[in-house]
């Protein structure tokens, strides 16, 4: 009798231990422990094979001194390609588009453009300084939080560069990469791939070209006016035709050491410390491939004749950026476009 109860108790004890054991295993491994471990492993790999005299550390704190990198341009100008190539660099993390950052920046722009609103905000004690520190705090939380940590954090939301000057005020040490592309290619891409962009009427090449012109002008002017030359315009065509040349210049501009990984971003997709892609973004199916020139001249023959005739007047930015508005297509290999310090 006693032995039976004893055995029953023993069996119960064993069963409950097994259950707890498996429960313990199945409850997700502590996320912080894992991410901290991943962080540590990744940081160790970082320093393992590098002969860096001053290894770039992951900063302890993020504030207005943080040297962020902002990548942008009119959508369909190679912004995603640029950011995935940067992501392939072991010291940089951009990550996907945040979507929320351009909305906050647009809201701030509308407040600051209305003189009446500025007066009201000032009267409320919400001065430029106060508002700036609030916007900065918001941006940092999103940029820092939405991907792996890295010594150089980067953000790619195409239209953020409409607020380039403001961002450079918020983050004086930030650098900006403005992707430029032949407007005809950009517009053809958004129309043929049906990429909805606020303000662009996808049924009209004419309207889209006018809107492209306006948008790229706003961004380009701010880029040229950036303090201390902190903005580098990069032509998409040059990036896909001469990737190594362009990336070398870019990394020098960003004060980053050269790493060949940036030329083979397709190998690092989904890897830790590599490239994270989003199912929602429309460029994802393109950037899983290595850098290629497929999309360069897809637009030729697709633009309506009447639009082609008025091209120079519809989109004056084309010639300002070095694209011949009457050539279908221009020779993208021309040396003029190689010059990345376009001061026109």
């Amino acid at each position, binding site marked *: 009798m006693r032995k039976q109860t004893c055995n029953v108790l023993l069996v119960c004890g064993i069963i409950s231990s097994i259950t707890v054991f498996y429960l313990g295993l199945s409850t997700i491994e502590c996320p912080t422990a894992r991410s901290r471990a991943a962080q540590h492993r990744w940081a160790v790999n970082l320093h393992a094979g590098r002969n860096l005299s001053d290894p770039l550390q992951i900063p302890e704190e993020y504030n207005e001194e943080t040297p962020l990198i902002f990548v942008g341009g009119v959508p369909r100008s190679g912004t995603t390609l640029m950011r995935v190539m940067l992501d392939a660099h072991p010291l940089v993390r951009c990550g996907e588009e945040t979507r929320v950052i351009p909305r906050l920046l647009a809201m701030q722009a509308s407040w600051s453009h209305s003189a009446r609103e500025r007066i009201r905000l000032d009267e*409320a*004690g*919400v001065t430029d300084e106060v508002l700036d520190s*609030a916007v900065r705090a*918001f941006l940092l939380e999103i940029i820092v939080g939405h991907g792996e940590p890295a010594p150089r954090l980067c953000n790619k939301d195409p239209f953020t560069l409409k607020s380039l000057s403001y961002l450079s005020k918020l983050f004086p040490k930030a650098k900006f990469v403005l992707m430029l592309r032949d407007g005809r290619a950009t517009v053809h891409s958004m129309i043929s791939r049906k990429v909805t962009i606020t303000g662009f009427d996808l049924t009209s090449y004419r309207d889209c070209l006018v809107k492209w012109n306006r948008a790229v002008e706003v961004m380009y002017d701010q880029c040229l006016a950036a303090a201390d030359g902190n903005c580098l315009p990069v032509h998409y065509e040059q990036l896909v035709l001469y990737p190594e040349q362009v990336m070398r210049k870019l990394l020098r501009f960003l004060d980053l050491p050269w790493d060949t990984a940036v030329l083979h971003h397709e190998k690092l997709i989904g890897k830790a410390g590599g490239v994270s892609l989003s199912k*929602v973004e429309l460029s994802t199916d393109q950037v899983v491939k290595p850098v290629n020139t497929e999309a360069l001249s897809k637009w030729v023959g697709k633009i309506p004749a009447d639009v082609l005739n008025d091209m120079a007047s519809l989109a004056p930015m084309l010639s300002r950026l070095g694209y011949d508005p009457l050539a279908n297509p221009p020779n993208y290999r021309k040396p003029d476009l190689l010059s990345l310090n376009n001061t026109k």
Partner: protein
Amino acid sequence: MRLSVKRAAVLLLTLFGACTLTTLYQVLICPGKAPRRYMRSILVRNSNQTQYRYNQNTPMVFVGGVPRSGTTLMRAMLDAHPDIRCGEETRVIPRILSLRQGWGRQTEERWALEDEGVSQEMLDAATTAFLLEIIARHGEPAPLLCNKDPFTLKSAVYLSRIFPNSKFLLMLRDGRASVHSMISRRVTITGFNLSSYRNCLTKWSNAIEVMLSQCMAVGQSRCMTVRYEDLVLQPRATMQGVLHFLNSPWHEGVLHHEEAIGQPGGVSLSRTECSTDQVIKPVNLEALTRWVGHIPADVQQDMESIAPMLRRLGYNPNANPPDYGQPDPEVINNTQRVLRGDFKTPTSLKGWAQVSPKGGRN
């Protein structure tokens, strides 16, 4: 035979026991949800060089209600307390909250955001950081920070979550008085058609219903309703209740906020806010029943159905006006001084009302 089985069983048991203990240990040291990457802390210094440190756990008060319900009076009286600082309406806080709400609704946008690695927790952290910077920096620091933007109380539940030690004061007022005030003073409020008493009363009822349900969801210990009528008729008792709710010591100054205007540690007013010309005066009864006789007859007839919240809040929709209560002698005295013309808007606070239309808020 039996002995070895038993020994084997005991051995197995101790083995599994050890495993259990180690896994339990791991589970216990794991804080569960990944903590935020860094806890934002804001350091502000006041004129005396005293340093104040604020973060999302700092106790905070949010004052709100439908506009024209005495929200500015309440925050001015609280501002007169040396330990409390509300300051002017920030205007930007309700807009950020509405933006945040849009990102949280169960729509494609939310899933798109999750796909991009922007989680709801991250949006909370970013919103909290933004709000904290504005609230902490747009006025002088004080032990108890307070914020008054009327429509924030539509997000009381959300605020109570991101600021775990926050409390809420919901100002209630007879909707007829609020609506008469916004129409007669031409205070633009999004969604309110100032040419129609009927429309404004309906909107008032909807708005206060939402805020009241948010207040109730937050709970009695963290959200308190204050009737404007009680505040102006019996300020002493009402403010005693409010300060007790806020765990702040009594201070006589809250009954004489008009003496602290423009003073350091006192009441800071905005020249562009439409209530400014009223709160420079002491607590008085001028605005209590001004609405009587101004509501169109047809609206008065349908009052109960147009604004069901009137009765729910304890205001008789058919009494013009209802009996709001008995005034304290202090308030009667104040009202007489005001009617005599003792309180004129100082020139430093005048002039802006002509530059821009009064009010203008969303």
